[in-house]
């Protein structure tokens, strides 16, 4: 131990160099989750899942107490009723709440019936303030792979960045590493939707490389374009909030409000086949719509 302490400075420097090397290597070559990742994932996913559901429950309890006046009034009425009816009522309320959430997700499922989809729950979010990604409770064991497209109530939420055995990390569209080829649903003008560090904190992102002569306007709906190999065409992404001219005035860019409220999703739909594996004929059929 004393030897270690004496050379601590040198050890630290060696470790820093090692870390820098792994940073550069893993940055250049997008890594597949390995044994170590999966081991940590196995341990952490159920834990985060349990924590998330406890937190949801606690949130529910607090909401409950928030309406205490209403509850008192309701309670006096309910006392006259039969006990069975009240329990039944409460049970139905819970079911309704849950079903409301799932219905909004189902709407997305119905909106894009062409694609096979699997549902998943969100168990954790990124730990730092610099990224916007989250972890869902299904992974390679359920057939998920990298770059699968993730939908949430409203439209496009992001894509899978890495898939472990029991979990996957999803890169949301407002993360600064994300870029999606989009077009205006009304005017057809193309652009690239990218996350931005500054806008991320407001839940917004930006659409870059819009032609100066493009007719895209405030309030326009943006959908994924047919240029992408990852994202199927025609999925709602967001709405234009504001259009700005670039300082050099060659291109325009737009501030976009995503159709999905990224900060508050808790269930998602994953299109369970990579878009590139769809056969060409059905791809053509999809893009012609």
């Amino acid at each position, binding site marked *: 131990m004393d030897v*270690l*302490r004496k050379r*601590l400075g040198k050890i*630290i420097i060696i*470790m*820093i160099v*090692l*870390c*820098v*090397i*792994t*940073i550069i290597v*893993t*940055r250049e070559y997008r*890594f597949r989750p390995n044994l*170590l*990742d999966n081991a*940590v*994932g196995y*341990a*952490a996913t159920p*834990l*985060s899942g349990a*924590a*998330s559901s406890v*937190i949801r429950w606690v*949130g529910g309890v607090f909401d409950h107490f928030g309406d205490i006046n209403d509850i008192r009034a309701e309670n006096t009425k309910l006392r006259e009723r039969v006990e069975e009816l009240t329990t039944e009522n409460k049970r139905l309320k819970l079911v309704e709440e849950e079903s409301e959430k799932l219905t909004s997700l189902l709407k997305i499922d119905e909106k894009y019936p062409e694609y096979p989809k699997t549902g998943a729950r969100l*168990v*954790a*979010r*990124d*730990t*730092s*303030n*610099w*990224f916007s*990604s989250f*972890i869902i409770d299904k992974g390679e064991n359920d057939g998920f792979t990298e770059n699968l497209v993730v939908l949430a109530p409203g439209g496009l939420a992001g894509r899978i*960045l890495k898939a472990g055995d029991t979990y996957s*990390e999803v890169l949301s569209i407002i993360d*600064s*590493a994300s870029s999606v080829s989009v077009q205006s649903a009304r005017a057809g003008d193309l652009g690239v939707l990218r996350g931005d*560090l*500054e806008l991320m*904190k*407001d*839940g917004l992102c930006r659409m870059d490389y819009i032609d100066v002569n493009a007719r895209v306007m405030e309030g326009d709906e943006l959908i994924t374009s047919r240029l992408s190999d990852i994202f199927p065409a025609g999925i709602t992404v967001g709405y234009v909030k504001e259009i700005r001219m670039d300082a050099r005035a060659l291109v325009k860019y737009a501030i976009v409000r995503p159709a999905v409220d990224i*900060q508050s999703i808790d269930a998602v739909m994953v299109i369970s086949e990579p878009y590139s594996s769809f056969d060409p004929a059905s791809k053509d059929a999809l893009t012609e719509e």
Partner: protein
Amino acid sequence: MPRVLIMFAVIFLTLTLQSTALSYIEIINVKPNLPLLLIVSYAHLRGDMGGAAFGFVSGLLQDLLFGRVIGLYAMLGMIAGYICGKPFKDFYKENYLIPIFLTGAACVSYEFLFYVTYFLFQGKVRIISYFGRIILPETMYTLVVTIPVYRFIYNINRRIENHERFTRKLF
């Protein structure tokens, strides 16, 4: 050995909290940096070697779970632990002002280094805006939770130290 196991459990608990509960108590969409706070507190109590080891392990776990690259959190955690553990012989551990000061300084420089190593070379250069929107609020928020977390670590550490003293007498 109990020290390693207990601290490992504490790290795991913190990372779980950081990734689940803390996103519900965000203020202006920013959450406090609990893992860093933990590293600083532990380094302040145990010196540079303990701090660096603790920082490295908790950073590596964070890398494996949430990292975009492997080694970034580990490197920053180790540096933070090492530097914050340096002056450990000079201060009383019962004083709360030192950990607050250390946390503030560590948080700003940690996030700044994070930005430089990860984002600067991607051409994201609006440093003042990022400082105002992310680094400063995060530091403020972390400072608010410093005292309870430091107390928590301080108590755990004192119990382990008592236990270690006891076992050393036996053998």
